[in-house]
């Protein structure tokens, strides 16, 4: 929980990792390149006093994770989003089992999400069932740019992906976190395109598709489909740290999301350990849309910030929010599948 100016905020960090990016675990130049690419994100968008050494960035101890998230980070509940990358890292970058082991040592702190890969076919469906039973999965994180042997990625609309989504529905796994990356099959298509999210969101109206990085670098494609699909959500991982380095751009991204999909379908995330939640939460609660943009985007109220920081994710994951941290019920959406599309306003004068 974070408190400021008489307001109390329930905080869910919807996208965190417990990874091993050390050279010993890097399987090849791709693993090294992947970790270093993350490190450049970290260095480029963090405040100077929050920049870690490369060694610190490669691997955090359990104590550091607990400290960064819960002791100083104000987080009430953190959601592990595994990123296997077994072609890049010897033991995987960040698997469900690695996350789960840490979560079990700290009951009540974490939600453990799983993952699947449609290229694993029938055998993978069995493994998904085991994973769901072992970790009581409510969500999965899917990385469509993951490499697997000769394959450089997949689409949510692939036939086997439908099989896995059907199985998720049967298993009660309702939260599908989607993360796009630079490669896909076929490579001549735009790997960041979210059109496949549109397809599956229509086909599986009972599932929720949380598009990580709110579709960046294709914010416009994301907004367009999310406006039409009430079960599509925008995760703020990677968008959040712009609050420091480019606050006007952050205001635009948030303003666009609020315009197109509304305050009930946006979820906060630090993307730990790329960034840490403490400074992001402090800055976010202090943040306001710059005055010259307010005629277009309006202002951020404590209610909007409470929804984004935790209440929206709490709804997706059926979390029990302490009474004092909830909003008056009139301002909660009736159904868990999100708000109506924003009305279309005339173009800003």
């Amino acid at each position: 929980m974070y408190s400021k100016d008489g307001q109390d905020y329930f905080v869910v960090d919807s996208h965190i990792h417990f990874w091993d990016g050390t050279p010993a675990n890097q399987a090849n130049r791709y693993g090294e390149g992947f970790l270093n690419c993350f490190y450049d994100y970290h260095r480029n968008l963090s405040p100077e006093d929050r920049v870690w050494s490369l060694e610190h960035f490669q691997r955090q101890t359990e104590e550091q994770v607990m400290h960064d998230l819960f002791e100083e980070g104000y987080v009430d509940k953190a959601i592990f989003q595994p990123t296997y990358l077994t072609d890049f890292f010897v033991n995987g970058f960040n698997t469900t089992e690695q996350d789960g082991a840490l979560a079990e040592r700290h009951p009540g702190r974490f939600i453990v999400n799983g993952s699947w890969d449609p290229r694993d076919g029938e055998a993978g469906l069995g493994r998904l069932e085991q994973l769901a039973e072992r970790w009581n999965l409510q969500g999965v994180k899917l990385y469509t740019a993951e490499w697997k042997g000769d394959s450089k990625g997949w689409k949510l609309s692939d036939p086997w992906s439908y099989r896995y989504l059907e199985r998720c529905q049967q298993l009660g796994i309702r939260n599908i976190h989607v993360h796009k990356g630079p490669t896909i099959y076929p490579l001549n298509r735009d790997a960041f395109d979210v059109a496949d999210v549109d397809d599956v969101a229509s086909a599986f109206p009972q599932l929720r598709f949380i598009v990580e990085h709110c579709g960046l670098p294709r914010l416009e494609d994301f907004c367009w489909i999310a406006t039409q699909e009430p079960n599509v959500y925008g995760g703020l991982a990677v968008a959040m740290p712009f609050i420091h380095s480019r606050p006007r751009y952050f205001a635009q991204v948030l303003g666009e999301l609020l315009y197109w999909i509304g305050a009930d379908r946006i979820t906060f995330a630090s993307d730990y350990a790329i960034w840490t939640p403490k400074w992001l939460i402090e800055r976010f609660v202090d943040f306001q849309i710059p005055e010259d943009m307010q005629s277009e985007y309006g202002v951020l109220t404590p209610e909007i910030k409470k929804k984004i920081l935790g209440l929206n994710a709490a709804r997706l994951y059926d979390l029990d929010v302490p009474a004092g941290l909830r909003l008056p019920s009139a301002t909660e959406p009736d159904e868990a599948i999100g708000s109506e599309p924003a009305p279309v306003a005339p173009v800003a004068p």
Partner: protein
Amino acid sequence: MSATTASRAASPPSGADAARAGGNPAAGPVPAIWRALDAVVDPELDEPVTELGFVTAVSVEDRVAHIRLRLPTYFCAPNFAYLMVADAYEAARAVPGVDAVDVRLEDHFAADEINDGVAAGDGFAAAFPGLAAGELEELRITFWRKAHAAEQERVASRLARDGVDLATARLRDAPDTARLRRRRERLGLPAGDDAPLLVGDDGAPIPADALPLRLRLARTTRISIEGNSGFCRGLLSTRYGG
């Protein structure tokens, strides 16, 4: 121009500026190659690779042009990277005094496939056997369309402030349409003075009732492209210093 360029992104190496200044016949075709590279754009950002700081060296030896390129991350999408390398190759090849071109993308996961593929000249699908289902023209057009929509919105939002009726406006009614016209021409869309100010991807004027939504989405597209450009510049300077 060069000095501005250098300060806006991670700087090209010293010597590049002098070479670009041109006019010295002893420099050979190098200045002309730099100018030719000004026409090569990052397809996602629609900005010249020279301004973005992606070109680190240009030299000519025995009528062979050598060009070095770098990108903001090791994992920049390989299809866009290929387009930039291939476009740089074609641009330099057209410069008088250049008989052959060697473009080297560096520090990228698919550098070998891309560099060798462009040198072989057999296209993208041949450079990534089994991984592609076609060439990159459709991808390029998708991003030309995004850039066009974004530029249209930029022009229209200025005009709307002056109370101009956007549904009936022609290109001649707006100031500063050079960029917009270039983006139209690239797509084969009407770009003359009498052309409608706001057209769809098919070149037909956008109907008045569809305008608000189309312009609103174009605005989001513009914000997205501008934001990506800022992030790419930032990552490049973090990666290489700047």
